[in-house]
């Protein structure tokens, strides 16, 4: 048991434990707080696996962005100071079915990968120094990083088959959505002001 395993157990326990805490808590803001800890522990797992870009992304998008938005939404829509959610028994059954089936699929997928089974793993403690941003960029440019066994992959696949074009289209699309949202919000406010004046 090396330090890598110990940290993996620590982070995975934190992720699972706080995920359970999210489920069993009834106060929404506490739920959000537990979700932060759970997602933060997941980011820790990513860092541990050497995927520091994905880990930082997880922190930035899920922990920083999504959850702040969530808490904002809760605070803005709250009627009473502390909202607690009541779950009906039907919700429990539905959630159990969805969550259970997803869990089963994930467990099956995890055990079907031969490299992850016990005994076959190479006991390399950490690959933290691997340059993941470079690989992500190369993946966008069309270099299949997972299939880089031959030096001629770049020539075979070519640059055009990469994800760069979809990525750029998505970026421009997001920008358009942002501008549109800003425009809509602005127009609405003007109308409200006019209504208030008349």
């Amino acid at each position, binding site marked *: 048991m090396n330090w890598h395993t110990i940290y993996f157990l620590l982070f995975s326990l934190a992720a699972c434990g706080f995920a359970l805490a999210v489920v069993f808590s009834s*106060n929404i*803001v*506490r739920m959000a*707080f537990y979700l*932060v800890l759970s997602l933060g522990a997941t980011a820790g797992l990513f860092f541990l696996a050497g995927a*520091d*870009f994905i*880990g*930082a*992304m997880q*922190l*930035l998008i899920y*922990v*920083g*962005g999504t*959850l*702040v938005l969530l*808490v*904002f939404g809760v*605070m803005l829509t709250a009627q009473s*100071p*502390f909202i607690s959610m009541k779950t009906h028994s039907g919700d429990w059954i539905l959630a159990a079915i969805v969550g259970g089936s997803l869990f089963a699929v994930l467990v099956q997928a995890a055990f079907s990968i031969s490299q992850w089974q016990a005994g076959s793993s190479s006991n390399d403690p950490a690959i*933290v*120094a*691997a*340059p*993941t*941003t*470079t*690989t992500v*960029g*190369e993946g966008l*440019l069309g*270099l299949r990083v997972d299939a*880089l*066994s031959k*030096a001629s*992959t*770049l020539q075979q696949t070519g640059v055009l088959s990469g994800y760069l074009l979809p990525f750029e289209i998505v970026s421009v699309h997001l920008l358009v959505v942002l501008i549109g949202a800003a425009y809509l919000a602005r127009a609405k406010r003007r109308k409200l002001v006019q209504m208030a004046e008349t």
Partner: protein
Amino acid sequence: MADFFIHHWGWWSWLSYLLAGFIQCNLLLLVPFIGAMFFVWVERKVSARIQDRLGPTRTGGKFGWLQLLADGLKLITKEDLMPGEADRLLFKLAPYVSFVFSYATLMALPFADGWVALRMNVGVFFVIAVLGLEVFGVILAGYASASKWSLFGAMREAAQVVSYEVPLGLCIVTPCLIAGSLDLITIAQKQQGWFTNWYIFHDPFTFIIFWVYFTCATASVNRAPFDLAEAESELVAGFHTEYSGFRWLAFYMAEYGSMFTVAGLGAILFFGGWNGPIPVTHLLGWAYTADESHWRTLGYIANLLGCMNFIGKCIFWVTVMIWVRWTLPRLRIDQVMKTCLKYCTPIAAAMFVGVAVWRYEFPGGLWVKQSAASAEVREGAFMDATKKEAGTINQPSAQKLIEKIASEEVQ
């Protein structure tokens, strides 16, 4: 350090690693802690000088250093209050959340060449990601206090921090664009040499963008003139209205920790990090190499000087923030938002495009002609290193990766 203990003093490896880890963790924690104490004292003194406040100029000791102890004692002996309606768990946790996220950024901040707790390929990205998380502690504090003052303060501050992350990110990306890396150590290493190699002097656009960065950084750590969220007298102290004593101190420490971090990030991205204005250590050939299995004393001294350089730059920029705080009047919330969305974001975006064009047209930066003219003045080991690096920048990294894999296959 552990290797040093093992190879030079012949200690057991577990003891060496334990001791090295202990010393380094403590050093990393002590820098912001002592820094926060020192900055509080500087803040008191500067505010006293600027605004003619009598208290801090008359506290005892040489230069009034007893003010530190007085502040600390006052804060620790205050009663620990909590509103009756508050969400007890979150109310207690919120200061620590803020504090932890503020100090976690130091993990990725290099103090000198290779002197970093966790060298990450995406150091810059990690620092902004974790700095942005600090707002969560603020929201928790405001929400859990069950007080309208706190809630409004938290909303204002969260809105401010979240919106200032946009121009801040744009400003931070620019030096990464020039350096072609997200690694803080690589970015600082690329600025080695005379102070003209610093990215603030790289081209006119970076010179402008540093000031945008500084404005946004000041705003994102809630310093004046953007400290509306915690304005003292006008708005009943914002999100930490209900906090007292040590919990309030934790928020304050988090603020000073973040100030140190953004100042350090600015120093690395725009002011050459640990590289001094004159490359004394490089001219003397004391370059530090982190991958050597044992310490070379000269390299160690060079890095110690670099560390002092870096901390000096941090202290300078924090002092500028303090100076700005006690000089400028506070902005209204609409003015704060206007500064962010109408001025900082477009300027940062335009400068980003400008830097991209400039880097394409003049890859060597603003001083490429002058450096060719006065090459003999600047001769030294570091110039060769930078030239070598400049040669390898343009090489596509995909090709390098393929070559690496091909060579591994041959082996």
